[in-house]
């Protein structure tokens, strides 16, 4: 299939099981949101998917088993946007973005063509005006968009994002999610972790709901999974559900 398939992923630190039997599949063009409380293993699951950790089980992208690939070939299939990036040196934004060409470049220095690709990626995420700024001086939202641009420059089949909306204001969250929807619509499978079930429902084709210690409560469409029962079960919160224009909104009762 064209897309990504995870089959029975398991991961533990010592005896401490973090991920249990995570299985899902996602077509190119779809968005999967991983939901669950803090510390339930969302980041760990993402790192199992892109092999930063060594999980048991299989991950297939376009039917290729990722365990058989070296770092470079893997980077051509999969981009990763971390939750936090601590900048080291004051690089220009454009140089940071063009570093996404590394898998294609190997040991050579980027050419004008690579810079062109990087500039286009900045245009696509709507921050082309930042190209010559120091990336150490960006706001949280700008930095996130720049890192998404860098991942796009890799021209991946699958894009992983660890809490792309964290630390962002009300508007920037929506901007980031809209851009992710567009990216998916261009035929990339997008997998992200997310805290807000409403935001997840807004853009996701599928959600994966986790409880503590990697217990997977459910996997399917947002409507199927984000039910009152499941939310109460996972978060222990009393909630109320509103339906409006075919969409469902979840509010906590104070």
């Amino acid at each position, binding site marked *: 299939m064209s897309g990504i398939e995870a089959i029975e992923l398991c991961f533990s630190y010592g005896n401490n099981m973090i991920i249990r039997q995570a299985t899902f599949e996602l077509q190119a063009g779809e968005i999967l949101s991983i939901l669950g409380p803090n510390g339930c293993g969302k980041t760990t699951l993402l790192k199992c998917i892109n092999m930063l950790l060594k999980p048991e089980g299989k991950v297939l992208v376009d039917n290729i088993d990722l365990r058989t690939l070296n770092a470079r070939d*893997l980077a051509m299939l999969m981009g990763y946007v971390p939750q936090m990036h601590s900048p080291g040196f004051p690089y220009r934004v454009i140089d940071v973005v063009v570093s996404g060409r590394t898998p294609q470049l190997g040991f050579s220095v980027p050419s004008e063509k690579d810079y062109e690709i990087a500039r286009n990626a900045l245009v696509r995420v709507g921050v082309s005006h930042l190209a010559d700024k120091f990336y150490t001086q960006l706001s949280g939202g700008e930095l996130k968009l720049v890192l998404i641009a860098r991942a796009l420059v890799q021209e991946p089949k699958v894009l992983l994002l660890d809490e792309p909306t964290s630390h962002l204001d009300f508007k920037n969250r929506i901007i980031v999610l809209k851009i992710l929807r567009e990216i998916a619509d261009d035929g990339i499978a997008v997998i992200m972790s997310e805290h807000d079930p409403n935001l997840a429902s807004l853009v996701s084709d599928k959600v994966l709901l986790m409880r503590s210690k990697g217990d997977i409560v459910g996997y399917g469409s947002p409507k199927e999974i984000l039910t009152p029962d499941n939310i109460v079960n996972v978060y222990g919160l009393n909630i109320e559900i509103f339906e409006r224009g075919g969409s469902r909104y979840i509010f906590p009762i104070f």
Partner: protein
Amino acid sequence: MASVEYIQYSKQSLEFLRSNLTRAALTLSPFIFLIIYLSVGKYNVDFSSLHQLLFSDSIDRTIFLNIRLPRAIEAMIFGASMGISGASVQTTLKNPLVSPYFLGISSGAAFGAALSIAIFGYKSFFLVQPAAILFALVAVSLTLGLSKFRGQFTPVSVVLAGIIVSALFSGLLSLIQILVEPEKTQTIVAWMIGRLYTITWADVRVSAPLAILGILGLLYFRWRIFVLSMGDEEAKSLGINVERERLLVIFLASVATASVVSVTGIIGWVCLIAPHVTRFLVGSDPKVMLPASISVGASFMLIADMLSRTIWNFEIPVGIITTIIGAPLFLYLMRRALHEWH
């Protein structure tokens, strides 16, 4: 609109001109300083006839070809090695406060030299250099080995391990110094003083090949070095084999610096200062910064050694000059950089 575009256009071309001028100046500067370096000194070499200088059997020829020239070349190779090694180590470890010396190269080399002098005496001085290189590499390997904590290899753990290893080798060095005869202690102390006045063509022949190999290797890796500074997980997801490539970069930097230190002794601060001066001049752009650090390092050493030969009526070891210039300069650059980055 047209005027705005014009202003933007001229601003761009000005920027273009500025960066190209900087590049040209940086490329030329080591050669300009080399010419100045060769023409100044206690003895006034007669440059009126180049032919006579190069081919006649005169004292001018001896001073020029056998004293000044090898010393100038070693100064340049030393500066170039320290410049690019410092820049590479700082970048791969994502830490502007480290240098190859921090990883234990200087104390390892000093220990190796002392050990060789203690065992074989100063008559087999040719053994000092390989011993210095060998123990510099031993020290770096130890640092890297110790810094791998639970399979993790973090910038902070590298620096801490470097401090531990340096302390260990300094302690062992002191032990050697008190155990051997006083004359050997003197030789050891004389070796450790960072200096270039002892340099002959033989020293250049010993140190240059490995140093140049290291420099070229680091230049070849400059893009990967930049990507390594994105952090381990990001570098990995950009297709870098993080552990292996970082080790390789540190190994190349160690080889380059250890091989020059083995003939000059411990000349401090250059590997820390040269990268910062370079960033100050050309910015952090990875494609430009590493090559530029070669040129900045070489120029810095030529200037420092010129001062060491000329400011007093006897020679001041260049290591003292680099420290006196280096410490306040580093403070200034750091304050400026911190101001600019945050």
